[in-house]
């Protein structure tokens, strides 16, 4: 029963994919949309069933289907593990996935390749489910690379534009750099413990008497590199902002709510490993904090509405990694969930705006939209309040916990994270003010057509806004349902104490004030002074550096991409030619020897006699000397 349901859960989106691929055109738009959406909704329904079940039984479900890959010292089976962690992830993957499918029905309706779009989205959900429910690292890896593939397909969805294709390719390749790390980590774990299965791995690590700490740390570090690629952390984050080339629902689903959280999922999954490698944890924490700050600073000056959200995502993921690095997995998971709500809402909201403006993404050409688009405005406002950490909204609770943990572990990290949070509040309200307040700065034509989006677009916005508001309830300070729920995965939580002292309240107050300061600054600049960001060419000084993202892309280009291409040319034109001439040269030498040798055979009896006599002399003297 459970096996069959798990298969339904997994294969419903895959079936949707197949139907849309093979019959999408024949079925027509409406059917294709309905099948695409329903297939994910079915998965969501099954997930809810499993969720209710596990809440009662507390028993993880293990399903082994067949042997997949065989290595000399272990087998990898194709199996699933449905436990608290995977079901939690499934809930928001399929739940938000369903909403975004619904949204896409309207958003993508006029696109001629709509059925392809739904096919890819379904395929993505299929791979994401595989990633989450795999019972071992290698099945997870199928999903891991699979979602990367779908990300590639969807970023380059409008494939006629080569810039978009470049962005898609970049995302795939950067992810693959991480994937190599992940594979290396897998190799080391396989070597050390002769298994890749999570449950067996956990027992093996717990039962090991003398662990090789050097290799264990190497494994953890390699896995972390994999996480950096997928979850867009320094130094592998630059693909995510470019990924905004894809249609907006894709940005919301893949590049904000689900796929980019895969790294956090993997590290949480392997918490028993990372807990043993404090050095790697420190690296994770620092990388996370620095990423949070760097991305936030870039977000301050971006003018493309989706780019702001993209950098915001990188920054928020950084905060989650900070929590992971400090061993507070449950806090990272909490933030993953609230972030999924408010960031999906923000992306979908930005899509609604872009839709209304017929593709305009530059905030300098927006403004004053709140009257024309009240639902979009209000839902986005709620999400912005949530991400800025305004009390009572979901983001307040999750972000506050991250700051709290940081404060208890390491004050500098807390400072960095707090500064990033203040910046977050600033750039989010900069976005809100520039988009929805003051006068409209677009064309008359656009102004004439301004309208609220249809209900298929606003409905998901409303649901997500509600979730962004109340999502914090799952883990209130002092009484956390989430922590209780995750205890089987994170045993440390059982002994953790929840007390709120003066320090905690102080910190909370600082965080709130910080958030309000950020919002206030944005208000002062963009409402009071009515500033509109300048044209690209007029951006100067440090803003220019920020606007150009610290020139990281250019730097990568100069130190990696260009040299490889130059090397390729050198190999192709010089080395290959040289090697080839060498072989031909051998042939020529043979020819030459033969040519010279030919000259001796010229028919002159005298020469033959001479050689004959010389030869005879040589033999005689040899025999004589040998005696």
């Amino acid at each position: 029963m459970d096996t069959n349901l798990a298969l339904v859960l997994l294969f419903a989106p895959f079936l949707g994919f197949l139907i849309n691929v093979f019959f999408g055109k024949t079925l027509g738009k409406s059917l294709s949309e309905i099948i695409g959406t329903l297939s994910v909704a079915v998965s969501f329904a099954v997930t809810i069933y499993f969720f209710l079940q596990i809440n009662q039984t507390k028993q993880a479900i293990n399903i082994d289907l067949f042997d997949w890959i065989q290595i000399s010292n272990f087998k990898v089976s194709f199996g699933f593990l449905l436990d608290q962690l995977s079901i939690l992830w499934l809930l928001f993957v399929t739940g938000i996935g369903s909403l975004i499918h619904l949204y896409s029905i309207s958003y993508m309706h006029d696109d001629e390749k709509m059925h392809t779009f739904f096919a890819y989205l379904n395929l993505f959900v299929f791979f994401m489910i595989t990633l989450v429910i795999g019972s071992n690292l290698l099945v997870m890896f199928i999903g891991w690379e699979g979602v990367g593939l779908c990300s590639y397909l969807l970023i380059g969805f409008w494939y006629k534009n080569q810039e978009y294709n470049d962005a898609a390719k970049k995302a795939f390749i950067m992810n693959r750099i991480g994937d190599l790390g992940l594979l290396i980590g897998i190799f080391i774990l396989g070597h050390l413990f002769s298994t890749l299965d999570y449950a067996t791995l956990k027992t093996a690590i717990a039962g090991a008497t003398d662990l090789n700490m050097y290799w264990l740390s190497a494994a953890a570090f390699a896995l972390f590199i994999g996480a950096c690629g997928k979850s867009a952390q320094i130094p592998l984050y630059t693909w995510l902002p470019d990924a905004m080339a894809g249609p907006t629902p894709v940005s919301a689903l893949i590049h904000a709510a689900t796929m980019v959280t895969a790294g956090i999922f993997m590290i949480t999954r392997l918490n028993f490993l990372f807990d043993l490698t404090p050095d790697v944890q420190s690296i994770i924490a620092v990388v996370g904090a620095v990423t949070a700050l760097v991305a936030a600073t870039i977000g301050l000056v971006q003018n493309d509405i989706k780019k702001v959200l993209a950098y915001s995502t990188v920054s928020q993921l950084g905060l989650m990694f900070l929590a992971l690095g400090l061993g507070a997995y449950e806090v990272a998971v909490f933030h993953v969930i609230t972030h999924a709500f408010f960031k999906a809402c923000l992306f979908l909201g930005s899509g609604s705006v872009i839709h209304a403006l017929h593709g305009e993404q530059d905030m300098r050409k927006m403004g004053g939209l709140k009257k024309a688009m009240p639902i979009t405005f209000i839902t986005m406002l709620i999400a912005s309040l949530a991400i800025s950490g305004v009390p009572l909204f979901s983001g307040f609770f999750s972000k506050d916990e991250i700051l709290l943990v940081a404060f208890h572990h390491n004050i500098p990290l807390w400072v960095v994270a707090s500064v990033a949070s203040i910046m977050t509040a600033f750039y989010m309200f900069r976005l809100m003010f520039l988009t929805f307040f003051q006068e409209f700065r677009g064309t008359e034509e656009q102004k004439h057509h301004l309208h609220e989006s249809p209900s298929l677009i606003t409905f998901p916005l409303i649901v997500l806004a509600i979730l962004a508001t109340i999502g914090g309830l799952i883990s209130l300070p002092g009484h956390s349902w989430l922590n209780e729920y995750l205890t089987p995965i994170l045993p440390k939580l059982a002994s953790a104490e929840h007390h709120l002292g003066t320090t905690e309240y102080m910190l909370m107050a600082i965080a709130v004030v910080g958030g309000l300061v950020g919002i206030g600054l944005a208000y002062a600049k963009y409402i009071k002074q009515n500033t509109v960001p300048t044209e690209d060419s007029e951006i100067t000084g440090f803003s220019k550096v920020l606007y150009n993202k610290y020139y990281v892309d250019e730097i990568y280009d100069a130190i990696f991409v260009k040299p490889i291409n130059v090397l390729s040319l050198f190999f192709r034109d010089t080395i290959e030619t040289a090697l080839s001439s060498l072989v031909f040269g051998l042939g020529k030498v043979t020819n030459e020897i033969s040519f010279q040798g030919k000259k001796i055979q010229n028919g002159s009896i005298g020469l033959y006699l001479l050689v004959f006599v010389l030869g005879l002399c040589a033999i005689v003297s040899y025999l004589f000397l040998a005696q």
Partner: protein
Amino acid sequence: MNVSLILIILLVGAFATFLAGDKLASKVAFFFGLAAAGCSIVLLNHYNLGENISFINQWITQPNISFALKADGLSMAMLLLTTVLTPIIIFSSFGNDYKNSKSFYALILFMSFAMAGTFLASDGLLYYIFWELSLIPIYFIALIWGNGDAEERKKAVVKFFIYTLAGSLFMLVAFVYMYQKAGSFLLEDLYKLNLTATEQLWIFLAFFLAYAIKIPLIPFHTWQANVYQKAPTVGTMLLSGIMLKMGLYSVIRWQLPLAPLAAKEYMYIFIGLGIAGVIYGSIVALKQKDLKKLLAYSSLAHVGLIAAGTYTLTLDGLRGAVLQMIAHGFVVVGLFYVAEIIFRRYETRAIAEMGGIRSQTPKFTSMFLILVLASVALPSTFNFVGEFTVLYSLSQINIWFAILGGTTIILGAYYMLKMFQHAMLGETNTKIFADVTFNEGATLVIIIAVLFFFGMYPKPIIDLITPSLQEILTQINRIN
């Protein structure tokens, strides 16, 4: 029933095709190809039931040469690769017109015959004969039915012929040397030789020269790209899909167990050479303008990794290498076929002259993309199983081997996706690209189905090859 039947079918098929005349040649060849494939599957079944399907008969008494065909799991796997790919390759050529097609198709079957013989022979001299025999048909196929400037082509093909022939001569010398000592060319008898470390080193190197040129490993690869480019696509498929596996297979079957001391002593050098090929091939592929040449260099990179796997002398390395050989055989045939399909419509292999095809033919694009992804070893494709196993085996020798060899994951994605982008995507091409025909589609679908099936369920192949690889490992690890 024994495996000689396959050889008979292929040889008879070659003659029958020639006699059938130009009109019927392709169909007759296809029929015999299918018959051989069907027959191998039946034989595989017999083999799996534990029957002995090997064949041995005294051939020449002085010198002592046997007609010995040994069918163990490894040989059966390679035989299946040959006999299954042959009809696919023949089928893929339907729709092309070849002058004197009776000779063309007869040569294909003859080549298939020689390659199957190479995979089965367990007598050194017989093996050597098959090995060299396979060179003759491909020489003519490339020379007569190839493309591009005739003079250039001749230069490339003759170079290929002489180069590989010259390399193989050293192998013959090694065989003769061992015959002097053993009085037989039979593999089992050669195993029993107590060769000193020095003798083994020379034998190892003699074999190496033959195989390094055939596979090819850098820096012995200079014949490859030009021949791949200039041969007709059918020839390129035979070369890359099957023939280069002859070299890799021979490493496992002949070189390692006959000279294990040398293999163990110098394994790091040869693993290093293989990995250098991975990186070198990938980087050169990046800037290729010709689609077939790009695929040739991609092959160079992939076989480098396979060779590295074989030289690890571990079960994982050998197993991964064999799996990857089969997977690569299918994917590379598919990719060269894609190049052919594009050529049929645009009459070009220059990537710069393509582009904007996707919007005209979504079906073809999807199949092309799947092959690209298989070639970069996306998990769930057969290529992943092979590549993963090989990389794992490398990591067991030294983690840096796995990291350097693993760059294929990144570089492979780079050059393949770049190629795909410029060949297929972008603004709709003004030249019309007719959708794939049924034949074309069916061929690609079969290849893709094989790749996905064994990608998810490689067990049958793993079970087939593992016992014989273990036997070979026992030979490698025997104490003299």
